[in-house]
């Protein structure tokens, strides 16, 4: 828990006059689980996009394990071991659930990790699905993705990331749209992954669940980092309360 795996320095991004991310800096230590919270529109997803190469920052630097990855292509960044989920889940609808996972298993990163032998990709895919909570001996893994309920799709998204055998996992509102029981069953999976050494950044609105497993919380508001610290401290912070109270109407309308 002492080495920095990800360092973000003074990241800035402007979208046609709207400042989406303003001077954001933070560090992530190896094995840490960092929660990122903030009202809607505070720039959380943009931050993820900036870190994973989907959006080029106007200024600032992102360093992963000492390598500068600012503005690199997303597939190169994923190749280095950073996996992310997408908020708007769009699986490969016409394929079955486990076929969805064949694609990341096709990447050169996985080929290298498996020592050049793909082995039985189908079996690896089924195992992965079981790891995220798909019932193994049922038809569910074989069902076409378009027929799966939303909670399963979100877990499929998680499996897609895990297929990459990442060292850093970024979850963008994984729990949104999941039922209480689905969240309850997925949370321990994430916790276990973290305890096994996977560094995780979790963007979430479900604060209760997030605070149970994260080590540290960072709060964003209007693209700026306003607070960064252990969950208890963050909850007591006045600025945080004001940020959320101000957008409470948005929350109740969402």
């Amino acid at each position, binding site marked *: 828990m002492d080495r920095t795996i990800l360092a973000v320095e003074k990241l800035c991004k402007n979208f046609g006059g709207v400042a989406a991310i303003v001077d954001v800096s933070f560090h992530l230590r190896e094995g840490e689980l960092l929660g990122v919270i903030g009202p809607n529109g505070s720039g959380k997803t943009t931050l993820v996009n900036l870190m994973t190469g989907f959006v080029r920052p106007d200024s600032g630097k992102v360093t992963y394990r000492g390598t500068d990855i600012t503005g690199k292509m997303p597939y190169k960044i994923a*190749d280095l071991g950073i*996996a992310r989920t997408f908020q708007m889940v*769009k699986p*490969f609808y016409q394929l079955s659930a486990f076929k969805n996972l064949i694609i990341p298993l*096709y990447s050169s990163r996985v080929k290298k990790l498996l020592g050049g032998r793909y082995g039985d990709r189908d079996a690896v895919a089924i195992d992965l699905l079981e790891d995220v909570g798909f019932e193994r001996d049922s038809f569910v893994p074989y069902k076409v993705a378009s027929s799966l309920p939303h909670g399963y799709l979100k877990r499929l998204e998680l499996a897609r990331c895990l297929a990459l055998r990442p060292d850093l996992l970024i979850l963008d509102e994984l729990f949104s749209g999941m039922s209480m029981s689905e969240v309850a069953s997925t949370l321990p999976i994430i916790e276990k992954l973290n305890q096994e050494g996977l560094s995780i950044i979790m963007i979430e609105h479900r604060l209760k669940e997030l605070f149970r497993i994260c080590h540290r919380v960072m709060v964003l508001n209007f693209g700026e980092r306003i607070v960064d610290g252990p969950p208890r401290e963050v909850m007591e912070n006045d600025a945080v309360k004001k940020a959320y109270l101000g957008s409470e109407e948005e929350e109740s309308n969402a």
Partner: protein
Amino acid sequence: MKLRRERLDRGIKARCEDIFALSSYREILYLVIPRILPLAVLLILPLMKGVVGLYWIKVMVITCAIALLALSWDLLASVGLISLGQALFFGVGAYLTGYLNQRFGLPPFLTIPLGTLGGAFISTILLLPVLRLRGVYFAIVTLTFPLLLTRFIETTKILGGTEGMSALSPLPNLWVEVYLPVIALLIALFVFRRLINEDYGLVLQGIRDNDRAVMSSAINIYWFKIQTVFLAGLVGAFSGAFMTHYYRFVGMPAFSSDYSILPLTAAVLGGVGTFAGPTLGAFILIPLSEVLRAFGTLRVVFYSAILIICIVGLPEGVFHYIQRKYHQFERMVNVE
């Protein structure tokens, strides 16, 4: 008493899903006939030229050329690249072949392979810059390049200018003329279908459906797009290369929009993404267009109408429809 339509798989299909399909001749035939029958027809038809007539054999050759372009179009569509100008591949392959033949006197069995490879290579280079942009840019560029290249040739008068290059070497004999495109078509069909059903094809379709997810799965989507363009280019350029020696002529018509619209219509009509569909579409469309020759340019209006109707109303295409009919039957049941 309300009725609703219900679709069920035929019993024989359900039985054929498993390995037990090998247990009875009836089931084996059920699976094998749809594949063998068209194959046999394609291979035997040229032999019957006495019955069918030389004219229709010629139509068949042209159909194969267009079908090859339709297959190449379908491969591009499978990775999300929509081509409005297959004529680009065709023309580049055609001109390269003609040039090699006229300038260096190389015989067809050399110029055609060289024209195919070179044509694919050149086309890929031309399209390289737009592979990083949104899919629409590919459509736009493929639309404009054939037109612009035509003007270029017309103005600079290179490669024969408006006259083109004529008196090129013929193909050795009638059998080569007919069987070369047919064999090429069958090979391309077989290879592409295999490709798309393997994991490689999954990646291609993934790129089409959600390229961001594929990218964040550590796959270089641009490299895959390049490979696909090259592969499609091979098939398209071959079509052009072959036709150059079939007609013994290459000129500005090699970039004509017919070579773009016909494969496109054939593919949409037959069923995008199936490869068998575009082939079927070509075999419906081209003979039909020959029959309707008297209507002149109204045929193109007809193609446009087909395109719009198919795209909006029957997006699955004729092939899927036939496949469905083969595998399923419908009946009306009472709604409780």
